């Protein structure tokens, strides 16, 4: 087995559907139409019921799984020669099929819950607050079984930051998360389309931290509302001349528009990580733990030839080449640790690692380490 072959990448920019030609626009339009229908209409409920699925969301999850399996086959044919890629994609698929589809479907049945209470047992363990904003709403926490409520809190405030500290945000963003899973399988053919300009980096920093701020504040306000027993007074905003609860506004704008329509619909035009990079509050929070933690990309000094494969195939738009060229091992908050920069590097300059500690390692290797 070759370790770092890259035959599958060779013709990327010569294939129209991968380089923003008409076929790419058609795929984008189809995806946008699908998501518009999913979020704002109800055509999918009937077919879901006909298939024995409880709601259109389970049908969506089933389609999502099919897209991931198809994408994973494509991905593994191109990049499966590296073990990191094989293990990672297998984990993504396992999480999707078991934690995101099978378990939520059977848990209410196993618990013997009455049909009206099914939703309380449909627990999506892989979507963690603040990506899954609803999970931590006081009304939801009170309604679901205690063990699930505790799991929600533990995952968000203990497991996620700790793993983020030791392994970087990759443990979630590119091994577990459903959005990342779809991006790295179905969305992988378009990873080179992510913008790498300085302007896109500036936008990313403002946008992603704004959404993170919004997610945290709106969750806090919900708790204020719950304890002050004021209904949703504190938690309302004016939008379009009407009073909206922040809860539904957040669901609309962040959940449906940004994560679904923009996030997936624009895969073929702007790359598969538009949502993760610019809007995901979970990615922003984990990015902060990553900055403080041990994950980093190590650069072998004075070996880079500036070819640009790493920067081009970085799905988060990080200019990896600039670090490699200046011999700087680095940790960037945005990096989801997909490993593609190291995989495509023709000179073997890059290596993802969980350093013992950054400073200790710096002293040992005599390598410059920068954090930007």
């Amino acid at each position, binding site marked *: 087995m070759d370790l770092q072959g890259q035959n599958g990448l060779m013709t990327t920019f010569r294939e129209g559907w991968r380089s923003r030609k008409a076929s790419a626009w058609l795929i984008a339009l189809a995806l946008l139409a699908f998501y518009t229908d999913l979020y704002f209409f109800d055509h999918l409920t009937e077919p879901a019921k006909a298939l024995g699925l409880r709601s259109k969301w389970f049908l969506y999850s089933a389609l999502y799984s099919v897209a991931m399996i198809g994408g994973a086959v494509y991905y593994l044919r191109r990049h499966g020669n590296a073990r990191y890629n094989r293990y990672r994609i297998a984990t993504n698929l396992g999480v999707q099929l078991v934690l995101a589809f099978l378990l939520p479907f059977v848990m209410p049945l196993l618990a013997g819950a009455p049909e009206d209470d099914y939703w309380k047992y449909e627990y999506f363990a892989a979507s963690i607050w603040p990506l899954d904003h609803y999970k931590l709403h006081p009304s939801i926490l009170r309604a679901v079984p205690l063990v699930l409520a505790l799991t929600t809190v533990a995952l968000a405030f203990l497991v996620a930051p700790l793993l983020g500290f030791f392994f970087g945000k990759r443990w979630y963003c590119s091994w577990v998360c459903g959005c990342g899973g779809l991006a790295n399988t179905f969305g992988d053919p378009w990873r080179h389309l992510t913008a790498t300009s300085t302007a896109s980096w500036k936008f990313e920093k403002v946008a992603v931290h704004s959404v993170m701020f919004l997610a945290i504040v709106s969750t806090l306000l919900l708790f204020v509302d719950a304890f002050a027993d004021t209904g949703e007074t504190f938690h309302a905003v004016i939008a379009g001349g009407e009073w909206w609860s922040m809860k539904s506004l957040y669901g609309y704008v962040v959940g449906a528009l940004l994560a679904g329509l923009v996030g997936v619909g624009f895969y073929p035009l702007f790359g598969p990580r538009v949502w993760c990079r610019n809007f995901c509050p979970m990615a922003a929070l984990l990015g902060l733990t990553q900055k403080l933690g041990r994950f980093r990309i190590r650069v072998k000094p004075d070996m880079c030839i500036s070819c640009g494969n790493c920067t081009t195939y970085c799905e988060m738009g990080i200019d990896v080449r600039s670090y490699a060229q200046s011999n700087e091992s680095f940790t960037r908050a945005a990096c989801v640790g997909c490993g593609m920069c190291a995989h495509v590097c023709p000179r*073997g300059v890059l290596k993802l690692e969980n350093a013992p500690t950054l400073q200790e390692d710096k002293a040992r290797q005599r390598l410059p380490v920068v954090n930007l």
Partner: protein
Amino acid sequence: MRIVIIGNGVAGMEAALAVRQREPAWEITLVSEESDHFFSRTALMWVMSGQLSHRCIEPLERDVYERMGFHRVRARAVGLDLEARRVHLAGGLEPLPYDRLLIACGSRPRPGPWPGSDLPGVGHFVTHQDLAWLEEEVHGGPSHGGPPPRPRAHLEATSDESPYRFRPVARAERGGPPTRPAVIGGGLIGIEAAEVLHAAGLRPRFFIREEWFWPMALDHAESRWIAERMREHGVDVDLEHDVEALEGDGRVERVLTSEGEYDADLVVVAIGVVPNTGWLAGAGLELDRRGGLVVDAHLRAQRAGAENGSEDLGVFAAGDCASVRWFHGEHMPEQLWYTARDQGRVAARGLLGDGTATYARGHWYNSAKLFDIEYTTAGLVNMNVEGERNWFFEERGPVRSTTRVVLAGERVVGFNLLGRRWDHTVLLRWIEEHRSLAWVLDHLAEAAFDTEFVPPLVVPQGARERAPTGPAPSALPEPLAPPAV
């Protein structure tokens, strides 16, 4: 102060940026015949295949010239007047006056010495214009990223002998893309050309004069694996084929070799590069026998025949065109990306008037990717070192790799490694520390740089105890004394 830099590549750009960092007001002019924008020449193969676009191989955003206040001149330099401190340009342009000059004009492809080397359908794979030629031949035009930016902008101000002129395209006479392309020359550019032709769905023929591919860097066993892998990919590797002529009626149709005649409707000549210094022929600067601009430790060019450092010409050279002193005392160019960058930085200190910066050639190291096989080398390999012995191990398991450790007496002086990634900084440290073979084999894991989850290299006891064999074949006729460290 007026700084003129001939060349817009890595050495020239590094120097320009370093000068600008210290001197915000100096006038800096970059002269390039080839390209409007700084790009990575080492990445041309991926633009050809479609793995990268032209934008992808430009390391800096295009507004860098504006932001840094660099003037650009898109023209061919054709002469240098050392007394008047002017660079003459082709196309009737005004001569460029300078106070200090950096020559960083790089290499040009070595032209084919055979009859028929100028036929339409014959070309090289070194410059932007070569890339445009090959894209035109094979694909009928550029890929998604478009052609190189303004590839013909220099045509008004160039001359016939320029390496940046366009090669005649034979696609129309041929009636379509080539069906039987050939690559001549068993080195790195040759294997890259073969790889991109293969990626375009063709079955290239690869003519190599030597007994095996890349004898300068590989030994027979290592090279056999590379050839085997090339053949698996569908490249016809023809070893020991000495090309004698290229033939055809109005375009190339056949390659005549010592072993017979072969059909070929496209030929990429990749027999190395030479310093692009033809335009300096009458300038009075010292050139080595390969045409490289001889420089001293400060990267100052010198007047032909003059005593070293006896005169301040204000002329520096860096990158592929500069002939620097190697560890064995000979002056030769170093045709590597990272040395060009380092030389650009040192030359910048000279341009700034700082006479203290020197360029010291360190240990040799390099890496490459030969189709999908990783290659790392460090130290003295195939250099015919005195008392040389080679310890060799071939790994055949989940990972296939070869490990060659070069010894001078009991001391490790070099590594040649295929199939895995290694940290050359660790290997070089071991060489400096005069480690023994046994010690190195005990510590190999510390130099491993494979991606995560790749099983580590395990050398079985039997192989460890295998006695190293005699010297590897070398291009150097005389044994080389191991350098003192």
